[in-house]
Every structure is written in structure tokens, then in C-alpha cells.
């Protein structure tokens, strides 16, 4: 029973990844299918989330090292960041500000309660960082984690469509769109367009985390 969460997650992930490789359909993104498969499994097997998470949280604890691991692409592709720093800096500053203000204003417009509003604000950056920002601005970190995932999934679904709609030509803009809009989940998708898109997405994701970290506390308190 102790290993159930870890084992079921590994199996679901491997199977869903194989399924996605076989049929390249956006709704079969492994993030979506694994989530649906596991929620259904836990529901019908009458397993609580606490029981599942007892061992599955070992995987979550790898999110920190996985974030630190982004120092490697940052180092490897630093010349790309140096060559395109104006694109990254300007677009990600606007992107982060839009993410925070947009979430807060929309959430308030729909009269969601205060805890949800603060938990939803940092949702555009990668989970461990979003959870830390959430904590800092008075949100609920675990709820933020759910919003981050939801954002990532939304991003991989709407991203390819927006890319065509906006007629983005530069790999920098395509990568920035995915990295800023749906962090790690979007980065996995961006690599499907090409190495440069994926690289730019990874870079955008890291830089966006730094920028959101700087902007969030000030913006959230300014928005009252």
C-alpha cells in the first residue's frame, strides 16, 4: 500500500507517454491523460489522496532539483539569451505583469474568495517557485500547485492555436509564448516545434520565474 502512489504514477506516466507518442493528439498530452487515469483509479479503488500522496510526494520532491537542473540549459544556451535579451526581458516583463494582474482582476470579477485570488496570482511560473510566491503573498501553496498545472494544461491546448493565430515567425516569440504561458508543461510541447523553440521556452521559463518573483508581491499588494 505504501508504494501505491509512486507505482501507479510511474505506470500511468509511462503508459500515457507511450500513448501520446503513438497518437499525436493535443488532448492526449501525457499530463492530461495521466491526471484523468489516476483520478479515476483512485476514485474507483477508494484510495484517498493522502494515501496516494504518501509515496507519490517523492516525485514532487524532485521538482526542486528539476528546477535547479534548468541551470544547465541556461548555461548551455546562454549565448541565445545574450543575443535575444531585449525580446526576453520586454516580453516576459509584460507577460508576468499580465499573468498576475489578469488573474487577480478576473478572479475578483467572478467573485472568487480572497484565498483563491491570492493563490491564483503566481500560477504562470513553475510549481516549486509558484508555491513559494503563493506562500509569500498569503495564498495557499497546494491550491496554487493545482492552478499551475491547470495553467500548464490550458497552455499546451491553446498555445499551438495561438501560435497560428498570431502568425509568430520567430522561434524566440514561439518559445517565449510557451515558457511564459505554461512553464515546464509548455516547454515539453515547445521542443516538439524545434530545438530553438524548446531552448527559448526553457530560457523564458527561468527568466519568467525571476521576474514574477520580483513583480508578484508588489503587484498583488498594489491591486489590494
Amino acid at each position, binding site marked *: 500500500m505504501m508504494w501505491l502512489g509512486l507505482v501507479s504514477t510511474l505506470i500511468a506516466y509511462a503508459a500515457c507517454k507511450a500513448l501520446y507518442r503513438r497518437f499525436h493528439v493535443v488532448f492526449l498530452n501525457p499530463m492530461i491523460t495521466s491526471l484523468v487515469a489516476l483520478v479515476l483509479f483512485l476514485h474507483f479503488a477508494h484510495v484517498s489522496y493522502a494515501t496516494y500522496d504518501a509515496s507519490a510526494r517523492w516525485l514532487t520532491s524532485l521538482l526542486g532539483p528539476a528546477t535547479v537542473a534548468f*541551470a544547465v540549459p541556461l548555461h548551455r544556451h546562454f549565448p541565445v539569451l545574450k543575443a*535575444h535579451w531585449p*525580446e526576453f526581458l520586454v516580453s516576459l516583463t509584460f507577460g508576468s505583469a499580465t*499573468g498576475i494582474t489578469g488573474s487577480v482582476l478576473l478572479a475578483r470579477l467572478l467573485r472568487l474568495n480572497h484565498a483563491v485570488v491570492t493563490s491564483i496570482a503566481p500560477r*504562470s511560473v513553475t510549481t516549486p517557485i509558484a508555491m513559494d510566491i503563493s506562500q509569500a503573498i498569503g495564498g495557499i501553496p497546494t491550491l496554487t500547485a*493545482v492552478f499551475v498545472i*491547470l495553467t500548464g494544461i490550458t497552455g499546451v491546448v491553446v498555445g499551438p492555436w495561438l501560435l497560428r493565430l498570431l502568425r509568430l515567425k520567430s522561434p524566440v516569440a514561439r518559445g517565449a509564448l510557451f515558457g511564459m504561458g505554461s512553464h515546464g*508543461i509548455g516547454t515539453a510541447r515547445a521542443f516538439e516545434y524545434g530545438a530553438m523553440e524548446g531552448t527559448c521556452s526553457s530560457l523564458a521559463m527561468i527568466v519568467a520565474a525571476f521576474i514574477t518573483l520580483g513583480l508578484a508581491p508588489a503587484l498583488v499588494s498594489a491591486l489590494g
Partner: protein
Amino acid sequence: MRSFVPSFLQPSRLRDVGIALVQIAGLYAVTALCNAVVRWLHLPVPGSILGVALVFALLQSGIVKLRWVEQGADLLIRELLLFFIPSSVGVMAYAPLMRQDGWKVVAVVAVGTVLVMVVTGGVAEAVWRARNRTPRVEQNPSREANAS
């Protein structure tokens, strides 16, 4: 059958995986250290961000060689989605909230994400075009076609 085994568990790559696992343990230690430092000094940044900055600085200065960390780092990044799954299943714990306000939450996230993506992609493309508007490109009538 083979395709149902995660790529990192295939026997042919076990030696590489061994190296990667040691490197992941190293990255784990760095993260834990950074988290401890952040807590201890009450720094206003998350430990993982401090970790990115630290490892990046060590790589850039050449103190840490790329080959000491790259296999582990690449494996973590390649299987990044896996580490998100348990927290995403956590949506179950918020079932009452989702039943009551689920559509609102989805609407905020969906509309918000579209806004973020349009702004980020649009601004990046605009800056990119502005920086690439060299005389040579301006003279070219089929600039759109060339740009792609």
C-alpha cells in the same frame, strides 16, 4: 512492450542512468542546501531559484564542469511532467471548491493564460521584428516569406 517501459528504465541505458542518478542526488543536495540557506537567512527568494543562480554561476565560472551535472539535469528536464503529476492529482482534495467554483477557476485560468500568451508572444515578436529591421531586410519585398 518495450515502449511501455519508461526510457530511463531500459537495460541498455542502465549505466548512463546510474551516472544520471548520482548527478540527480547532487542536484537534490544543492536544492536542500539552498532551501536551508533561504530559511536560515530569511532570504526573499525560493531555494530553487537560489539553486539555479548558484549552479549557473558555478558552471559559467568553470568551477563545476558541465559533464558533472548534465546527464542528471537532462533526465530531470526530459521527465519534468512526471514530477507535476502528484500535485495535479491534488485537485481531488479541492473537490468541494471545484464543484462550487470550478467553472470560474477554469475560466480565470483559461482567459488569463490566453492573455499571457498573446501578450508575451506578441511583444517578443514585435521586439524581434524591430531588431531585425535592417536595411537589407527592408529592401526585400518578400520579407514575410523570408522571415520564417
